[in-house]
């Protein structure tokens, strides 16, 4: 692809703004509320933030996985949290809410609609994640062995160390910094200030991964309102614009990938135009500490970029929502004036198999 063609490809046809964002408390286990009750206050808040109601929305898209709660069609019943009467166009991705956001964004690009609600709920606690996440692996050769997600991530971390791209000290430093930053995030589940030397005294969970390099198990939900056209200005004095957006996937065969790099992230970053300007803040969905190193390289971020000021997925990892939350957190940094241009990233699948990159800018 020529440079001009690449530029044309990434051109955003219609500016879309992130008008509002809300997330629930992130907790180890919410055994009080079903998914409708988890979502309802979040949806109410995302509307109340900008003084609108569901009647101002043209389209709804959600992201969740029935496997997490073992509830068939839980994504359909979750719509009860919004109340879709009169009937409204609606869609669902069996993916993180970041991909639901992408679907809504594409529809907004078409110009048929001006506003969309995106939400996701992630209940990681009702089942055994070690078993559930094994089922996203290739069903013939890998899934029947039931490899747990920590062991799979450990293979990647080991490959990273062997390639000289990172060390256990590096992983601990990322975990230490992330959870220290999380102290200023009221929605964080795990936040503390523990120095690297102390963390390195942890036992291995699966070598070379120690407990601090792992994401917490989290129940949580998030919601976002997207706006285009007049509504973008109506709902915000200083809109946060999506100026680049793309997602890419790699083979599901772990053996067919170089686990120490993320070509799908690099490709998405190129199409989204990450390098077209300076990046102030990056919210990266790196559930395991070592994955931040891989993503930072794939996105071409230098050491001047503030990474995961929210604490990232190491502070709270509601599966299916954690990616959408990265985009919400990045947008919040721009809305507050702390950043002019930010990149947000979401991942899905084992070892960063699938990656989404979203560039956000203020005015």
């Amino acid at each position, binding site marked *: 692809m020529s440079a001009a063609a690449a530029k044309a490809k990434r051109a955003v046809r219609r500016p879309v703004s992130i008008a509002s964002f809300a997330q629930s408390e992130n907790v180890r286990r919410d055994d009080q509320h*079903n998914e409708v*009750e988890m979502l309802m206050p979040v949806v109410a808040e995302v509307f109340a933030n900008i003084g609108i109601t569901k009647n101002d929305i043209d389209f709804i898209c959600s992201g969740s996985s029935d496997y997490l709660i*073992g509830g068939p069609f839980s994504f359909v019943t979750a719509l009860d949290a*919004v*109340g879709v009467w009169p009937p409204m166009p609606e869609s669902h991705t069996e993916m993180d809410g970041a991909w639901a956001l992408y679907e809504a964004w594409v529809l907004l690009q078409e110009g048929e609609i001006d506003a969309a609600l995106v939400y996701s709920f992630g209940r990681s606690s*009702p089942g055994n994640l070690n078993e559930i996440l094994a*089922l996203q692996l290739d069903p013939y050769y890998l899934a029947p062995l039931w490899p747990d997600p920590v062991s799979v991530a450990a293979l990647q971390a080991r490959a990273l160390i062997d390639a000289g791209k990172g060390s256990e000290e590096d992983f601990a430093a990322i975990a230490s910094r992330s959870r220290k930053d999380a102290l200023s995030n009221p929605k964080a589940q795990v936040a503390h200030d523990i120095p690297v030397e102390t963390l390195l005294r942890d036992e291995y969970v699966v070598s070379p991964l120690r407990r601090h390099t792992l994401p917490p198990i989290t129940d949580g939900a998030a919601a976002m309102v997207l706006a285009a056209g007049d509504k973008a200005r109506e709902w915000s004095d200083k809109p946060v614009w999506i100026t680049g957006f793309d997602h890419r996937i790699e083979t599901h065969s772990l053996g067919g990938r170089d686990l120490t790099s993320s070509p799908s992230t690099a490709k998405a970053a190129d199409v989204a135009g990450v390098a077209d300007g300076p990046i102030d803040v990056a919210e990266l969905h790196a559930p395991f500490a070592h994955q931040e190193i891989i993503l930072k390289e794939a996105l071409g971020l230098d050491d001047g970029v503030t990474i995961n000021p929210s604490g990232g997925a190491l502070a709270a990892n509601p599966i299916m929502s954690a990616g959408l939350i990265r985009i919400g957190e990045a947008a919040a940094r721009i809305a507050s004036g702390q950043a002019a241009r930010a990149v947000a990233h979401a991942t899905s699948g084992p070892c960063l198999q699938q990656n989404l990159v979203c560039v956000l800018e203020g005015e």
Partner: protein
Amino acid sequence: MSGQTTAEDLGPVTTLATPIRLDFEFTPGVAQSRFLRGLEKGRFVGQRCPTCGKVYVPSRGSCPTDGVPTTEDVDLANVGTVTTYCVVNVPFAGQSIEIPYICAQVLLDGADISFMGLIQQIPTDEIRMGLRVEAVWVEPEELTPSLASVRYFRPSGEPDADYETYKDYL
């Protein structure tokens, strides 16, 4: 190593069985817990929408029409109306009731949504829309926070309900 079976002897693999079983802890939530606790006491508890006034049984915590929390508990009658039904003649795995049997949507008096119930003590060729039925509960010591507390519904002996009373619930 002669005598050992080789891959060639066995031919290509055409089927791969990978048994999967996942266990979950179900979280009914605040509203549905009230319904389940009601069943444990031998009664149906619904919840009313503060916006449209509709009563859901069980409520999952919100009005699906308005998207607002249902907070007011409503005790419902033990009797209701069959709005629609089917006679099950087909055996299937895990079936616990002798066929043929009747599965019906029952609209409890005071509720604005029907739910599925087993109808017994009536010949299958006499089941009809509008039939008035009452819930038959298990013995008090057998009551649990589960729909298993309702053994079945049976004709209540009242005259059939007028179509006008349930036409909006079909």
